[in-house]
């Protein structure tokens, strides 16, 4: 069996053999219940020192001093002589204590001056300066009795400090009756911590055997350990309680098994508006809306929490003033080790702001989506309008072209035939009349050419009859003649025919692109390629010009068609409509426009996409 507890700061002195002696410098606390026991210890301690010719200092209560003097005299010690020699100092604790206090607190400087001074004087009274002084002090017990345990601990600390410059054996005494209250536990342990040893109260001296005494010591040790653990737990609980109480953002409170509020923190007060005294003991259903209470929601939540261990909810709750807030609630069931329901811990957070922010955000998202949809719709309408315009324009051009060709052209052709026959009728010798008719024929031919040129530009009549494969080179011949730009045309063998709309659209891209080549590129050549790739008809118009300036491309951004004017943008729309696209690559070495449409006409998926968008 161990005779000392494992904790480093409490050294229990297990038997009389270790009763403090002034020969062993140290700082021992003597616990006692009976004054005469204390006087026994003291008379042995002080008497031992005086008998050995060593110094002794006593700072004790009046009754203890008197009794000690009497006991020492009874042992034949001449305390008066020792006092005269200066090696025995006997001070009244009640009188000395105020001298080391300032404003109710122990003053270090005064303690050192007064107590240190006393020790120095006692030492100078003997010849062997290295001999230890026997010191008994009781000011700590007075402070303890006055309800100032921390000051008592402070005095113990000052004694320990003093021990660094003075050699002495010190006994402090506390009546054990003053140490029963729980509030004393912590100061008691602190006080013990200031000592090199603790002497149990005299009760154990009455025990018969060493074994019993040791058992008693062990019990004391256990008691000390239990006290310590309790203290640690209490401190931890206290810290936790303070933490919970201080939390402002969460309402953290406890419910008893019936749902009555049994604790309340600052956050709960802040969020719900009840002061602790207003809510403690009340049923927590007052936090719920009437309809929720009617539906039994609060009780139902506790049932679930009890069953599942935990319940989480988000919803409206009611403050004391009747206002609502959006709460995030967690209820956790609390059970003891045996599984018995002790109550519930409830944590509530006010999420009104978050919920409102979320709502506002959702609203904004919806609004933006709406705006986007509107924008999309307008874009769609615009595209449709643009397409409609293009189609109308096409139809118009086609009609005018046809009209010019079919009516005016035919009339002019017939007119020319007539004039030709007039010439043959009047013969070569028609004189001036023949000359005039020849002039008429020349004018008619010019008119025919003019009409043909205009009508072909309006609408390529060969396109319908012969398709792109023929209409493109035919157009290129005219373009080269007018612009002076050399053109080359490569067409894949068996290119075949495309749907009418696709052919016309590609033809318009060709016209538009060549117009741009002529007007802007500065290129002297244009290379046109027509092919089928992976089911798509591809028309490429490549020039060797200066390209579109990067600035212009950048300005137009994603809407690069802007760089190429309204015409190309219209072409792009037309390609899209047909399920195709228009691509543009511009480098310093030239620009390539690439028009792509499904060879078999707009695919069903493209049409579906168009309808959807």
């Amino acid at each position, binding site marked *: 069996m161990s005779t000392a507890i494992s904790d480093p700061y409490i050294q229990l002195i297990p038997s009389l053999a270790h009763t403090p002696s002034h020969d062993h410098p140290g700082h021992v606390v003597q616990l006692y219940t009976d004054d005469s026991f204390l006087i026994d210890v003291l008379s042995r301690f002080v008497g031992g020192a005086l008998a050995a010719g060593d110094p002794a200092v006593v700072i004790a209560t009046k009754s203890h001093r008197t009794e000690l003097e009497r006991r020492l005299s009874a042992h034949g010690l001449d305390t008066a002589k020792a006092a005269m020699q200066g090696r025995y100092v006997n001070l009244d604790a009640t009188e000395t204590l105020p001298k080391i206090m300032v404003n109710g607190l122990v003053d270090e400087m005064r303690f050192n001056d007064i107590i240190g001074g006393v020790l120095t004087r006692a030492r100078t009274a003997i010849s062997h300066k290295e001999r230890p002084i026997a010191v008994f002090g009781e000011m700590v017990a007075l402070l303890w009795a006055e309800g100032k345990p921390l000051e008592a601990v402070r005095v113990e600390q000052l004694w320990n400090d003093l021990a660094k410059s003075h050699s002495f054996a010190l006994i402090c005494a506390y009546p054990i009756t003053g140490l029963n209250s729980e509030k004393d536990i912590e100061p008691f342990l602190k006080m013990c911590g200031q000592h090199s040893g603790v002497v149990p109260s005299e009760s154990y001296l009455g025990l018969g055997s060493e074994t019993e005494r040791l058992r008693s010591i062990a019990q004391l040790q256990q008691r000390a350990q239990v006290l310590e653990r309790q203290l640690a737990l209490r401190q931890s609980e206290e810290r936790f309680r303070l933490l919970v109480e201080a939390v402002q953002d969460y309402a953290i409170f406890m419910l008893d098994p019936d749902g009555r509020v049994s604790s309340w923190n600052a956050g709960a007060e802040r969020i719900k508006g009840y002061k602790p005294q207003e809510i403690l003991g009340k049923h927590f259903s007052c936090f719920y809306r009437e309809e929720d209470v009617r539906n039994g929601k609060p009780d139902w939540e506790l049932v679930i929490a009890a069953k599942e261990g935990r319940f989480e909810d988000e919803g409206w709750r009611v403050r004391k003033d009747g206002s609502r807030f959006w709460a995030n609630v967690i209820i956790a069931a609390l059970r003891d080790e045996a599984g018995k329901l002790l109550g519930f811990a409830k944590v509530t957070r006010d999420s009104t702001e978050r919920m409102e922010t979320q709502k506002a955000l959702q609203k904004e998202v919806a609004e933006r989506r709406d705006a986007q949809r509107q924008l999309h719709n307008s874009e769609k309408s615009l595209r449709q309008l643009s397409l409609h315009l293009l189609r109308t324009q096409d139809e118009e051009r086609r009609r005018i072209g046809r009209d010019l*060709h*079919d*009516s005016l*052209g*035919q*009339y*002019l*052709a*017939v007119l*020319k*035939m*007539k004039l*030709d*026959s007039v*010439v*043959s009728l009047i013969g070569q010798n028609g004189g001036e009349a023949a000359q005039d008719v020849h002039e008429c024929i020349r004018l008619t*031919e010019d008119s*025919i*050419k003019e009409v*043909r*040129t205009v009508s*072909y*530009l309006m609408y*390529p*009549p*060969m396109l*319908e*009859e*012969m398709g792109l494969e*023929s209409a493109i*080179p*035919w*157009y290129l*011949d*005219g373009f080269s*003649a*007018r612009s002076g730009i050399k053109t080359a045309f490569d067409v894949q063998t068996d290119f075949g025919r495309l749907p009418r709309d696709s052919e016309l659209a590609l033809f318009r891209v060709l016209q538009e692109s060549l117009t741009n080549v002529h007007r802007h590129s500065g290129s002297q050549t244009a290379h046109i390629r027509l092919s089928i790739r992976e089911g798509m008809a591809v028309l490429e118009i490549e020039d060797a010009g200066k390209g579109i300036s990067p600035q212009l491309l950048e300005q137009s951004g994603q809407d690069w068609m802007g760089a190429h004017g309204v015409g190309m943008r219209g072409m792009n729309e037309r390609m899209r409509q047909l399920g195709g696209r228009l691509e543009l690559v511009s480098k310093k070495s030239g620009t390539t426009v690439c028009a792509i449409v499904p060879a078999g006409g707009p695919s069903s998926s493209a049409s579906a996409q168009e309808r959807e968008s």
Partner: protein
Amino acid sequence: MAARILIVDDHEIVREDIRTLIDRSRSEWEICGEATNGEEAIEVTKTLKPDIIVLDITMPRMSGLEAARRIAKLGLGCRILMFTMHDSDRLTIEARQAQTQGLVLKSQAARDLIRAIERLLAGGTFFASEAAPAFP
């Protein structure tokens, strides 16, 4: 040499002018029928089996080129002379590919039409393009 000629053009004024031109030039030639579009031309050809068809290109419903291809397929031995406003080498190629035997521009009808019909009747072809074709 007698010949039966079918005139196909959607313009009455043109048909009339061709008639006048042929009547005045060759009284032995007979205008056996007229048609105003490609489809009609095929039907009339089946019935009348003309020697020569003067066939306009740009017409409603079915173009002259398409009609020419189909008529050639009938194998009736009709000779086809395209008669058009369009002035292009490319068209000459197209006309040849459509298995016609000649092409005359409307603007040069007085000069070329009779000669061309004669050439076709003699078993030849007539694709004399103008020296300086006008391009669009």
